[in-house]
C-alpha cells in the first residue's frame, strides 16, 4: 500500500473511531437508566471505597455508590450541557456574524470588535466570572459556556457570509427585489451552515471540557448529581486509597473529548478538502 493510501486509511480510521466514541457517549447518556447496573444515588455504607469487584466493576465511591453507574449517568450532564451550550453559541454567533457581514460598515466594525474582545478572554475565566453573577448550577454553566462560544461562531459565520455575498445568486436575488430577511434566510443561511456545523462538532468537545472544569471547581453540576468534573473533584480527596475515583471519570471524559475532536477533524477534512495536508 502506498504511503498516501496508508495515510488516507488512517484518517478514515480516526473518523470512524471518533464516530464510535461519540456514539458510545450519546448512547450511554440516552440509555443510562437501562444500562447502568445501579442507581447513581444509591448509598451503601457497607461497600464504601471498595475497589473493582464482581458486584461493582469499577469500584465504589466514599458513600458506597457504584462508580460505573455514576460515570454512565454523568454522560447525560455532559451531552446536555454540550448540546445547549453549542446551541446558544451557534445561534447567537450565526445571527451576529451574518448580520455583521450583511450590514457591513459601522455595524460590522462594532459587532466584530466586540466579538474579538470576547474571544481574547480566557474561556474558563469568563465562564467563572459569568457564573459568579448568574449563580452556580448546571443551567447557568450551559449558558455561560454558550456565551463563550458566540465569538468563534460569529467569526466563522461572518467569513462564510462574506464569501456567499460575492456569489451571483445573491446578486440575482437582490435584482428581483427579494427582501433582506428572505435573502439572509433563503440564500445565505444554507450556504454558511456547513462550516458552522463542522465547527459545532469541535465546540462540543470544548463544551464538555469546560463543563467538567466548572464542575471540578464546584461551580457546575452540584453533588449528588453525577458529573465527570465533580466526580474528579471528589476523587482528589481519596487519591491514595481509591485511585479509581480519579481514573474512571477522567478516562470517560478523555474518551468523550477525543471522540468529538476526531469527529470534528474528520468532518472538516471531508467537507473542506483544501484543509487536508
Amino acid at each position, binding site marked *: 500500500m502506498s*504511503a*498516501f493510501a*496508508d*495515510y488516507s486509511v*488512517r484518517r478514515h480510521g*480516526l473518523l470512524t473511531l471518533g464516530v464510535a466514541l461519540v456514539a458510545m457517549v450519546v448512547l450511554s447518556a440516552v440509555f443510562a437508566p437501562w444500562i447502568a447496573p445501579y442507581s447513581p444515588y444509591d448509598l451503601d455504607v457497607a461497600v464504601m471505597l471498595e475497589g473493582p469487584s464482581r458486584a461493582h466493576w469499577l469500584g465504589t465511591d466514599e458513600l458506597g455508590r457504584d462508580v460505573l453507574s455514576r460515570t454512565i449517568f454523568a454522560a447525560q450532564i455532559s451531552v446536555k450541557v454540550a448540546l445547549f451550550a453549542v446551541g446558544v453559541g451557534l445561534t447567537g454567533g450565526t445571527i451576529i456574524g451574518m448580520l455583521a457581514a450583511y450590514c457591513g460598515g459601522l455595524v460590522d466594525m462594532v459587532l466584530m*470588535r*466586540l466579538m474579538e*474582545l*470576547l474571544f*481574547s*478572554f*480566557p*474561556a*474558563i*475565566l*469568563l465562564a*467563572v*466570572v*459569568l*457564573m*459568579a*453573577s*448568574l*449563580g*452556580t448550577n448546571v443551567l447557568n454553566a450551559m449558558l455561560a459556556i454558550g456565551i463563550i462560544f458566540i465569538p468563534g461562531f460569529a467569526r466563522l459565520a461572518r467569513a462564510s457570509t462574506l464569501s456567499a455575498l460575492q456569489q451571483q445568486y445573491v446578486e440575482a436575488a437582490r435584482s428581483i427585489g427579494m427582501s433582506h430577511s428572505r435573502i439572509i434566510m433563503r440564500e445565505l443561511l444554507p450556504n454558511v451552515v456547513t462550516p458552522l456545523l463542522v465547527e459545532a462538532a469541535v465546540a462540543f*468537545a470544548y463544551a464538555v*471540557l469546560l463543563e*467538567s*472544569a466548572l464542575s*471540578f*471547581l*464546584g*461551580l457546575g453540576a452540584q453533588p449528588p448529581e453525577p458529573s465527570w468534573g465533580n466526580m*474528579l473533584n471528589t*476523587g*482528589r480527596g481519596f*487519591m*491514595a486509597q481509591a*485511585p479509581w475515583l*480519579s*481514573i474512571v471519570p*477522567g478516562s470517560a*471524559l*478523555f*474518551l468523550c*473529548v*477525543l471522540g468529538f*475532536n*476526531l469527529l470534528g*477533524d474528520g468532518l472538516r477534512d471531508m467537507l473542506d478538502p483544501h484543509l487536508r*495536508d
Partner: protein
Amino acid sequence: MARLILTRLVLFVPTLFAASVILFIAINVVPGSAARSALGVDATPQAIMRFEASNGLNRPLAVQYTEWLGKALRGDLGTSFQNRVPVAPEILKRLPTTLELAILAFLLANAIALPLGALAALRHRGTADIAISTLATILGAIPSFWLATLLVLIFSLRLKLLPAGGYTPFFDNPRQNLTQMILPAVSLGLVSSALLLRIMRTTMLEVLNSDYIRTAHAKGAPEWIVITRHALRNALIPYLTVGAVEFGFLFGGVVVIEDIFRLPGIGSLVLVGIINRDYPVLLGSALVITIIVLFANMLVDTFAGLLDPRQLRPREAGR
C-alpha cells in the same frame, strides 16, 4: 518600527477599556446579584438594601463603573467584602506565582511543539509524523486538571518523587521552587502543546511546499540552511499568532491548576472571589489576568508585524 509599536500601544488602551466594561457587566449581569451572593439566599430585602447602600451598589451601574475605573486607574481595585483588605496589594503579592507558572508551562509547551511539529512536517506521512500527530490528538483531549490528578497520583503518591502541592518563592529557595512547579507546569504545558504542535506542523508543511523553498533546494542550499533559515523562520509567524492565543487559554487553565496544587496565585484568588462571593476580589483578579493576556497578544502581534511587514499592509491601506 517605532510607529508600529506606538500604533499597537494606542490601540491597546481602548481594548483594555472595553475589556474592563465587559468584565464589569459580566459580574453585574443580574441586578442585585452581588448583595444576594454575598449575604446568601436567605438574606432579607432589608439586609440586601443595607449591604448595597454600604458598598455603593445601589447606584446606577454606569456610576459604579466610572467610580471603580477611576480608582482602578490609580491602582486601587477596591476592598474585599469578606475581610475588608485592599485587593490590589493581594493581587500584586500573588502575581509572581501565576506568571511563573504560566511562563514555565508556555516554555515547556513550545519546547515540545516547535521541534516535534517541525519534525512531523519534515517526515510528512512517515512513521514520525503519524506518531507525533497521534500524540497531539491524545494531548489535545486530556483535560489539564485530570492530567494534574494523574501526575500527582504517580509522581507524588506512588513514586514520592515530587511534591503534590505548596509553593516556595523562587528567590527564597530556587531549587525547592522549581521542584514544586514541575507538576503544575507539566500539567498545563503538555496540554497546551497539543494545539501548538498541530499549528507548527501545518504551517511548516505549507512553507516546505512553497516555491522559495523549492528554489533554495534547486540552488543547492544545504538542507539544514533551508530548514532553519527559510522554512522555520517563515513558519514561526503564524505559529506566534496562535501561540499568543494559546497563552490566553493557558491563563484560563491557571485557575484550575493553582487550585489543585494549592499555589497562591491570582487564579486561586479568582476562585476565592467566587466561593466567598467577594466581587471586588473576583473583578480585580479577573481584570489583571485579562490585562496580562491582552498584553501578551499585543506583544506577539507587534513582534509578528516586525517579522513580516506584509501583515501591516492591509490595515495601513485601509486607513
